[in-house]
């Protein structure tokens, strides 16, 4: 813990969260809050995905399943059972992590493309299960009644509360990435990424390590899912388990630079702001997908290590500050 405090990135993360929390409050700027909450969710999803892809070298195409399942559990506990939002979100996070641990022990014996395929399988299977699960409204999903916002002081207050909670989860996600990176456990993961067989020979229990990181990478996205779908007001299987969001997470990670804490945040933040800007720009909105796609191609072609890799090459000293 003490070593964490000495790292500039630790303080940068806290500063970032502070700025996120302060900016929309100053001048009660709700429109900015709505922009920033999407950035925060993108950062949460990407930095947790980074634990699998960037740290361990396992591509997870079904990462969004944690977010969606967390959303379902959280919404169910908060609206049907009437639990407090924070407790519902935490319980949802723990339960989803347990489910991930079980799945992980099963599918993490697979490697490379087979593992990637299995993660798609998990996504499809969970979606099919939820779409037929009566207590969660099957395909029609669940809707949040306005009364459910009452314990948090009505919808207007509830949305602010949700915002601050999501910013908290964002900060925790980045701190978690940083903590794992500087731990012995993190070194084990990097060893698996570089050469799994060699890591096993050196005494790293690869299966357990992978299952743990798969489960850990599920916790905070599930909490974020519970908060976001509560704010969203409804959930159904097609929006909770949207395959595109999983892919976008991978794109954001590649854009920023996988394997680095700052890269995941940078990629997520930039990609999300770019998409938002293009979508609402009066001149460019008709072509927003084309432009976003073209820019991504350019970045990946010109800076294969992502933006953060490009920064390190440009200013070698920056690595010491950021890493």
């Amino acid at each position, binding site marked *: 813990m003490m070593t964490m405090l000495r790292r500039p990135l630790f303080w940068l993360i806290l500063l970032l969260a502070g700025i996120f929390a302060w900016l929309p409050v100053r001048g009660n700027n*709700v*429109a900015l809050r*709505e*922009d920033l*909450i*999407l950035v925060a969710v993108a950062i949460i999803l990407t930095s947790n995905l980074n634990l699998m892809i960037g740290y361990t070298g396992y591509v997870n195409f079904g990462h969004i399943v944690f977010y969606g399942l967390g959303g379902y559990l959280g919404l169910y506990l908060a609206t049907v059972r009437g639990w407090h939002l924070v407790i519902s979100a935490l319980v949802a996070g723990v339960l989803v992590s347990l489910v991930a641990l079980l799945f992980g022990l099963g599918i993490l014996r697979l490697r490379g493309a087979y593992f990637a395929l299995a993660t798609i399988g998990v996504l499809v299977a969970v979606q*099919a299960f939820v*779409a*037929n699960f009566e207590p969660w409204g*099957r*395909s*029609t*999903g669940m*809707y*949040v*009644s*306005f*009364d459910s916002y009452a314990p948090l002081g009505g*919808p*207007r207050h509830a*949305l602010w509360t949700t915002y601050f909670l999501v910013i908290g989860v964002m900060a925790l996600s980045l701190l978690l990435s940083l903590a794992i990176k500087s731990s012995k456990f993190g070194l084990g993961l990097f060893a698996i990424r570089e050469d799994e067989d060699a890591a096993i020979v050196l005494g790293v229990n690869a299966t357990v390590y992978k299952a743990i990181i798969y489960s850990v990478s599920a916790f905070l996205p599930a909490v974020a899912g519970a908060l976001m779908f509560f*704010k*969203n*007001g*409804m959930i*159904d299987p*097609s*929006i909770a388990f*949207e395959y*595109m*969001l999983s892919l976008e997470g991978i794109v954001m990670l590649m854009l920023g630079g996988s394997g680095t804490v700052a890269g995941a945040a940078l990629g997520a933040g930039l990609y999300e702001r770019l998409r*938002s800007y293009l*979508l*609402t720009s009066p001149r460019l*909105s*008709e072509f*927003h*997908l084309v432009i976003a796609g073209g820019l991504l191609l350019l970045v990946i072609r010109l800076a294969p290590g992502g933006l953060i890799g490009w920064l390190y090459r440009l200013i070698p000293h920056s690595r010491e500050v950021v890493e």
Partner: protein
Amino acid sequence: MKRATLISFLLCTCLAVSCLAQQTITIGFTVSRTGALNVDSLEQYRGFELWRDTVNASGGIKAGGKGYKVQFASYDDESNTKRVQQLYTRMILEDKADFLFSPYSSSLTATAAIVTEQYEKIMLTTGAAEEKTYKLGNQHLFQMFAPASQYLTAALDALKAKDPKATVAFVYEDASFSVAVVTPAKTYAQQLGFNVVFTEAYAPNTTDFSALIDKVISSKATVLLGGGHYADGSTLARQLTGHKVPLKMITLLVAPDSPQWSELGDAAYGVIVPSQWEPQSTFKAEYGPSGADFGNAYTAKYNAPPSYESAGGYASGLILQRAIEQAGGIDTAKVTQALNATDITTFYGRTRFSTQPNEHGLQVGHTIFLAQWQKDKSSKLVKQVVWPLAGKSADLLYPIH
């Protein structure tokens, strides 16, 4: 003298300008320009657009001695709920939208309503038939479509009149809208005394229905109700014809409403679709254009016949326009009051909103039509309105063969 003339001329000009005091109202909404809902959402948008152009061409909405020109603030929601709240907040706070229309589809609308209700903004919803949204305590949400539960109950009423002893099968897409339609329809069928012999939901994107069709045949059902969207609905109809299933009536959701349906040939014949509006419907409009005028203006502008989504879009504009006129301005409380009191027939049919606290804004005036694909004198496939009997353009063809 010259100066006096000049002054009086200037005064007159000022007076004339202030008499015509043109103000602008902004209506915000998102359109699914990309993504799965793109086709239906665009049709709805064209309805909004045609209404706006018609209103502005006639000098805007006239209320309380003022004229209000209509302008839109709209963005692409990518057929996804993710950005809906961001965009509706933006329209309310930055584009200063006075009123809102809903996105297309029930899930996007429910998400938008969380924001619009907080800011106490009126939102007319179209393309959002699911009832749950109106039972959450909203005070400023008004539904233009007849609710989802009515889609198949109309078909069951028509069947009851023709063949009360029919045996019924429900085969439907396992998706939000079709489940919301079929669940109450099944209960209603049992209430009417029909023998429901088979019920099964199929996965969205199903392309091979043979196993399901075999089950329908062995269940000895004489009537099939269900479907979902275009791709699965058209495939199901084609395979039912291919397997020569002896059905007396087939009613499918959404898909047969499209003009493309006639391209299915034999498989298209006799299929019934529940519809919010059809060009043949002959409502006597107490307000706004007649159905024929709307249809002609639409076809002239877009070179395509209007769908019920387009009609719903145009009608949302009309109902809002009438409420603003009656309220004498754009004050939200007064317009809400006017909408609560609305009970009017336009080219789109009757519109009346529930004012019960537990279902405020739910549509209770509009009813569902049944349209059936029949052959005209030259054996060309055309869609005819067969239900309700009062508005029919042809008799219901039963049994199909």
